């Protein structure tokens, strides 16, 4: 008889030892149940991640059958490239500016959605659309709205007389306007997520606290800055972190709207990595570019952990 079988058939002798055994076998069952998921994640997230590091210090290309170690050559080459410098700068600009905008707008919108009114579910559905719809398809909607000839924005602004007969901005074709467009689409896409996260935070504040503040005579702004914002701060951090991660690593909006153009003025790290590594076939350099995303992601993860830990203690 093998050990596990005897363990089951042994009659109850010492309660304590049996309980200990049971707990022990439960722990084994636990690890058995979780191991497929972990193996999968290690194989498809952990392994490729280390492969990316490995590629970044090699000279691998799409077709190559052998590769050699080149040290930090790829990173050196990449850092000196002015397109890369532009992409690095853009990545930060897009992520920071759109998230600041989103944070302010989401706060206003979440406060408006906190009240009850007729048709609230329908309003919420419409507001969620940009987040749930595939962003590659939502961006095509914007491609049509921002079209160089048929832009509905230009048509409307001219119709109401804001644009004169000679004003006709090419939203995706002029460098500064293209950046504004990209930021707008990012903000449009992220606003729903930030709003519902903030809304969850606002709903969790007990009504007593609002009542007490009202009794003490706090006005709207004092109430907002001394009660509401401090109380939702942890959840605001969560909303901003997710927003940052999503914009920072995104290449879809750029790919659909501008392909990094005009003249690389809207290029970001993710799109540059794609054009270099996949379209250009230079896997090594593409991997090196993509790895520049990692420090920011690691920092976000650390902040997220801290927030989680602090609220757990509180």
């Amino acid at each position, binding site marked *: 008889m093998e050990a596990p079988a005897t363990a089951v058939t042994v009659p109850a002798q010492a309660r304590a030892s049996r309980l200990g055994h049971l707990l022990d076998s439960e722990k084994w069952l636990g690890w058995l149940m979780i191991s497929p998921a972990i193996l999968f994640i290690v194989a498809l997230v952990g392994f490729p991640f280390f492969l990316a590091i490995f590629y970044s210090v090699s000279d691998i290309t799409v077709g190559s059958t052998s590769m050699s170690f080149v040290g930090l050559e790829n990173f050196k080459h990449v850092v000196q490239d002015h397109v890369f410098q532009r992409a690095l700068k853009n990545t930060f600009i897009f992520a920071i500016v759109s998230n600041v905008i989103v944070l302010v707008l989401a706060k206003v919108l979440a406060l408006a959605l906190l009240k009850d009114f007729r048709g609230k579910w329908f309003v919420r559905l419409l507001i969620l659309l940009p987040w749930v719809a595939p962003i590659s398809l939502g961006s*095509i909607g914007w491609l049509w709205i921002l079209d160089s000839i*048929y832009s509905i924005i230009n048509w409307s602004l001219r119709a109401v007389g804001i644009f004169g007969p000679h004003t006709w901005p090419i939203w995706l074709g002029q460098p500064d306007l293209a950046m504004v467009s990209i930021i707008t689409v990012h903000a449009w896409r992220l606003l729903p997520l930030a709003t519902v996260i903030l809304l969850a935070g606002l709903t969790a504040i007990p009504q007593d606290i609002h009542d007490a503040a009202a009794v003490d005579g706090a006005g709207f702004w004092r109430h907002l800055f001394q009660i509401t914002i401090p109380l939702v701060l942890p959840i605001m951090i969560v909303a901003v972190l997710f927003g940052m991660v999503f914009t920072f690593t995104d290449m879809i909006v750029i790919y659909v709207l501008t392909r990094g153009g005009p003249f690389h003025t809207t290029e970001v790290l993710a799109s540059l990595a794609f054009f270099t590594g996949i379209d250009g076939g230079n896997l090594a350099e593409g*991997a090196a570019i993509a790895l520049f995303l990692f420090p920011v992601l690691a920092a976000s993860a650390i902040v997220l952990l801290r927030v989680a830990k602090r609220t757990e203690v509180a």
Partner: protein
Amino acid sequence: MASGRHTLKKWGAKGGHFGVLAAFTTFAAFPFYWMLITTFKETRDLLNTKNNPFLFNDPPTLEHLRLLFQGTLYGQWLWNTVWVGVIVVGITLLLAMPAGYALARLTGRTGEQLGIAIFLTYLVPPTILFIPLSRVIGDLGLQDSLWSLVLVYPSFTVPFCTWLLMGFFKAIPPDLEEAAMIDGLSRFGAFVKIVIPMSVAGVLTVVIFSFTLVMQEFVYALTFITAASNFTVSVGVPTFLVRGDVYFWGSLMAGCFIASVPIAIVYNFFVDRFIAGFTVGAVK
């Protein structure tokens, strides 16, 4: 006098509230409204800059929808997306349900840390992994096959879904399983026969969430798939239908609208549960 001013203020606040909501709703939903309008307009109406674009200057047409489904591979892309989505949802449930249960009940303190580690892998984006994975997929001979997506997509659905399910399982009182185990069920039996049937809401949330992620995914599909007939919707429309100088805006917008709005309506019912997962307990 005082009460008159009070009423005025109240109406002002109401008007302000309405104004804020109207402005935001317009900003969020206008692109989709515009897709819908464009879908039914004649091409010559769309491309005449003298026409008022908000009006139907010609009678509505179904021509763009006909072209989309009969003249392009759109139907195939929808089918591909659903096919990949269903298999990925299956794999996700198979991996994430036991993992979530183990984290909720069996692995104790170490498990808690592990749960957070699993959740954090959700933050590792496709844009870091797609370059090495493209090579791995090639070596496995899955290049240009939908199976490559079936293999890779669970890597981002499983972490978050494990985390979500852990929360659901924790909320079920342990007494029920213990009672069933006294009646002779094994721990695993109790999980399958008691816990899973009680977590239908949680499982449904995971199904919707995973399916939405599959529909939205773009980078991997763009990297691994080259043949037009193997695209998913989110890649097929922006790469294959947007080609050359002539855009078929009517069909393009129809394609975007059809793949966006229905899933959003379903998602809306589950959104509070996702948020509970996203906020990692930052809200009690």
